[in-house]
Structures are given as structure tokens and as C-alpha cells.
């Protein structure tokens, strides 16, 4: 039997659906009939968006246990994908592991952090940039079920031609099954970080990112000023985080957040491999650095040799003047 269901795991359905989830729904529609799945009850705003994106089948997973444990989340998802062709989820660390465990349970093939997803000769293909953005690799999943985490900004969200009325059904995982799936792991505590400057978009999903490094000498004021003029998220290098100039959540790089925005602006960043590994797949790269020999200039579309403390505020003022 040919499988035609495209499942989308939604990360946050408590309010209106955000860009990355709408992107997943847009991609999923090209691969089959979309089923949306969430660990919480969707809000009215979320249901309205799902309807606009053509999703009639909505599943709320009712877990009698701790859904933040990887094993539990994977076990809860298993029955929801048994007739599915593909499951797409945002490229968060938690989702990568949940999909890996789900792959273990179902025998499904797994593609981590696809930047594009498409159909190829009846199979689901995932395309990604690797080796700090220097190589492009395209793979197909050869099993009946394909599991993919998908990076933000893979496509532009687009509602369906025809809206539908979503129907929510509940799929439950009972306490005994949840405990078995936890495999001995206990969540002692979970503390969500305060989002500072909540007017800015989250780093991992932002379409524009302004990042600062050692060349800021600890003053992120100019970085923030340009970010706010562009509606951008703020990023940083490992150095800036280790110096305590900015919180750990802002670290862009191979061991921090990997970003794929439409526009990346690096200020006072030399472009060490670890940082490049986390940002080099960005569409357009701009750098401001006083050192004309810095390696980041080699991978830039546009570069300014100059002092970020004067260049960034001037750029911000020029952009604000244009918007006024």
C-alpha cells in the first residue's frame, strides 16, 4: 500500500503557529495529506492556522508521563506514524533525538537538519549543507517511513488553496507505557530560560541574524542597535559567551546554535571554523571587521573593513531613516 500521510510534529501550539511550523506544513503538503501532531491541546489561533494550511487531521498526544523525555516522546509518536510516509519536525536538539528514537522503534530512515525537502522518484529526499557549508549533500530515504528534521527558512510559508476545518483527536500513552519508554531516565527539573529582549525573534529560527564576537570588546550595544533596525536576532561567538559578554543561548557554532538565516551579519568576528560551521549555510553573509585579513571575509558577500562601533550604528541609522 502506498503511504500518503505527511505528519508534522508541531513544537508550540499554545498560541498562533510560528514561521518554522508553517514552513513545515507548507513542505509537508507537497508530500501528501498533512496530519499535524502536538503534545499539547492546540489553541484556537493554532487551529485557525492549521485550517488555513489545509490540515484537517490534528492529533493531540496525551502522555501520562514526561513528554520531555526522549524515549517517552518517541513512544507517544509511534502509533501516529504507522500509516505515514514522512514525519517532519523542526531542527531542535530535542527533536533530533526524538526522531532518532522513533527511527529505532519503526525502522525508519532518518535525515537530520535538511535545508530542503522534496520528492525524488517516489522517495523523500533531504538536502543539506555540511562541512561548515562547504559541501551540499542530497540523500533519499529508502524505507517506507522517512523521518526528517528540517531547518528554518527552508521554504516560505504558504497557506493552502482551500481552507479546511481541523478535527482534533486524542492519541494516548498510558502511565505504564510511558514509564517503560523512559528507560530509567527521570527528569529532575526543567527551567525555561527567560527570553531577554522578547521583541527579537528566537535565534534558531530568525531570518536575519546580527552576531558579535571578540571585536565587540564586550559592548554589544552596536550589535543590538543594528539588530533592532533589521528586526533581527542576536548571535555571538564562543569567545564572547566564554567572556560572559552575552548568554550561552546566543552562541552560534558547531556546538551552539546552527543558523541558516536569509541574512547573517557578523561584527568583530574573525571567522574561526567552529563559528563558521554554525553560520556558513546562511544565504547572504555580511561581515564588519577592522582586520582586512580576517578569514570571514573569504566567505562573505559583502564586507566592511572598519570599526563596528561606528559602522553598525551608521548602518542602523540609514535603515531607520529609510523606514521612516
Amino acid at each position: 500500500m502506498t503511504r500518503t500521510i505527511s505528519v508534522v510534529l508541531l513544537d508550540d501550539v499554545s498560541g498562533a503557529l510560528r514561521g518554522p511550523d508553517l514552513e513545515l506544513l507548507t513542505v509537508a503538503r507537497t508530500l501528501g495529506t498533512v496530519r499535524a501532531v502536538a503534545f499539547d491541546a492546540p489553541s484556537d489561533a493554532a487551529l485557525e492556522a492549521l485550517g488555513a494550511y489545509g490540515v484537517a487531521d490534528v492529533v493531540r498526544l496525551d502522555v501520562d508521563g514526561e513528554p520531555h523525555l526522549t524515549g517517552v516522546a518517541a513512544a507517544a509518536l509511534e502509533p501516529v506514524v504507522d500509516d505515514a510516509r514522512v514525519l517532519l519536525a523542526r531542527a531542535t536538539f530535542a527533536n533530533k533525538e526524538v526522531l532518532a528514537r522513533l527511527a529505532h522503534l519503526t525502522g525508519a530512515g532518518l535525515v537530520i537538519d535538511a535545508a530542503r525537502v522534496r520528492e525524488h522518484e517516489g522517495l523523500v529526499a533531504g538536502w543539506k549543507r555540511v562541512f561548515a557549508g562547504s559541501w551540499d549533500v542530497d540523500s533519499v530515504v529508502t524505507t517506507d517511513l522517512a523521518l526528517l528534521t528540517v531547518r528554518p527558512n527552508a521554504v516560505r510559508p504558504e497557506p493552502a488553496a482551500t481552507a479546511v476545518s481541523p478535527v482534533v483527536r486524542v492519541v494516548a500513552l498510558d502511565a505504564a507505557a510511558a514509564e517503560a519508554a523512559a528507560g530509567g531516565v527521570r527528569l529532575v527539573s526543567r527551567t525555561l530560560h527567560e527570553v531577554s529582549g522578547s521583541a527579537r525573534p528566537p535565534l534558531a529560527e530568525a531570518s536575519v541574524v546580527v552576531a558579535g564576537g571578540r571585536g565587540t570588546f564586550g559592548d554589544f550595544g552596536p550589535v543590538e542597535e543594528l539588530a533592532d533596525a533589521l528586526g533581527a536576532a542576536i548571535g555571538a561567538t564562543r569567545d564572547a559567551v566564554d567572556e560572559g559578554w552575552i548568554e550561552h543561548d546566543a552562541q552560534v557554532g558547531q556546538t551552539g546554535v546552527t543558523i541558516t538565516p536569509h541574512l547573517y551579519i557578523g561584527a568583530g568576528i574573525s571567522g574561526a571554523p567552529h563559528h563558521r560551521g554554525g553560520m556558513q549555510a546562511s544565504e547572504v553573509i555580511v561581515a564588519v571587521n577592522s582586520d582586512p585579513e580576517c578569514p570571514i571575509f573569504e566567505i562573505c558577500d559583502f564586507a566592511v573593513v572598519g570599526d563596528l562601533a561606528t559602522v553598525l550604528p551608521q548602518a542602523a541609522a540609514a535603515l531607520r531613516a529609510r523606514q521612516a
Partner: protein
Amino acid sequence: MARRIVVVVKHVPNIHSARAFADGRTVRGAEDGSLNELDEHPVEEAVRILEGLDEPERAASEIVVVTVGPAEAVDALRRAFQLGATTAVHVGDDALAGSDYAGTARVLAAAVRKVAADGPVDLVLAGMAALDGLGSVVPALLAAELGMPQLTNAGKLELDGATARVERVVDGATEVLEAPLPAVVSVNDHINRPRFPNFKLIMAARTKPVTTWTLADLGVDATEVGEAGARTRVLSAEPRPERAPVELHVDAGSGGEALAEFLVRRGLV
């Protein structure tokens, strides 16, 4: 109590080298390959755990490093010796070429089980990701294969008798997780600062024996791993198209305006 710790490590192309693919597979030559930098942290953590033991227990303890890969992968084990590993196992077999996440985890699990046949393993440590694929899912899959609890991406690890407790920062949250041993724990690069190896360890690492196992030694069927067992197939692997040459603007007072003008021209604002 004495501890027996298995650290799974990977041999990857050096991130400072020109990394490449051939026939859809990562090129991992001897000259430009190295121990995955993030795997230095679990080795260091294992060394620290042993250093916390009293002398008789420490003497009875063991750090076994295990890697899966071509012959060159032994280089990664030599580096792990320099960092303080006591025993090393290389799983090499032509049938392993082209393994995906699932195949890799299956072989690593079989190797851990074989190590455990000589005496109980308390802990399996791994780096949070390999700096080639950056999938970061092998530790979770390894835990699933072994039926052990998974505690991944740890920035702190405490062992208390038969319990492991980790703290980690993931996806904008700080979590504390606990599980009984034996468990699979992956650690990130915030957990410790690997020490520079001393001369004695560097010299000893050259001649320490490395055990080599094949799939037959592990009882793993060749059809379950490598290309035969892979659930994905590489369609193409190409160097990224060359970027257009950088537009370089030397600031003489209007650098910010030039930047803004570029963003406008490219339709980015």
C-alpha cells in the same frame, strides 16, 4: 568503587583541512584526519572520574575507547591514549563502509556488549556530536540499541554510587536528568577543558596495543550495516557553488551607509 568506562570516539577529517566527499562518503585520510575534537571531552571526563577514585579502585578501573571506521581510524585511538585512555578497540570491516546512523549505532552497541562480556561496564561516554556529520543522534541510538538510559548533551556529570545525574542546556531550557547506571552519557564541550597530554602519555600512546574486531567477531550480520543496511542513500555530494567575489568596502566614514545600501539593493530589508 572501581569504574569501567567505555568511550566511543570517531575519526573525522580535521576541521582545518579541506574536507570532502568521494562516492557519497566522507573522505577520511590519515594525513588530515584526527580524533573528533568533541570526543576529547568524554575521554577527559572519564579520566577525571578515575582520578576521583581511591588508589586501589583506580588501579582496578579501565577506560576503553572504541571506534568504528577504516584503518586510519586507529589514529583517533592513539590520540585518546595520549589523553589518558587505557585500552582501545578498533572495529574495522569492509562491509561497514557507507553505514548510516542506525548502522553505526548497531556496531558500536555490539562492541560495547563485547567489552561488557569481560566485565560489567558502568558507563558509556560519547561526545555530543561528530564535527563531520553533526547529526548528534548516535548517542541516543546507541542507548536505544543497548537498552540503557540516555543522558545526552551533558554540561555537568555526577556519579553517585549507581546513579548518574547530568545538567544540560538544550533548546533554551536547563534540564537536570538522572538515571541508574549503566547509562549512555554524551557530553558537550562545556563540561571540561581537556588537558594537554604529557610527554609520558604521548610516548606510551605510540606503542600501546589496539584490539581489532571485525563484524564476525561482534556477531553482526553484514547486511545490517554499511550500505547494505543503510536506510538512506546519497544521491549527490557536491562542493558548494563558488560564491561571487566579496564586495569589499573599506570604511572611510560611510561604511555603515554602504552596508545599508547593499542590504537595500539585495532586497534584504
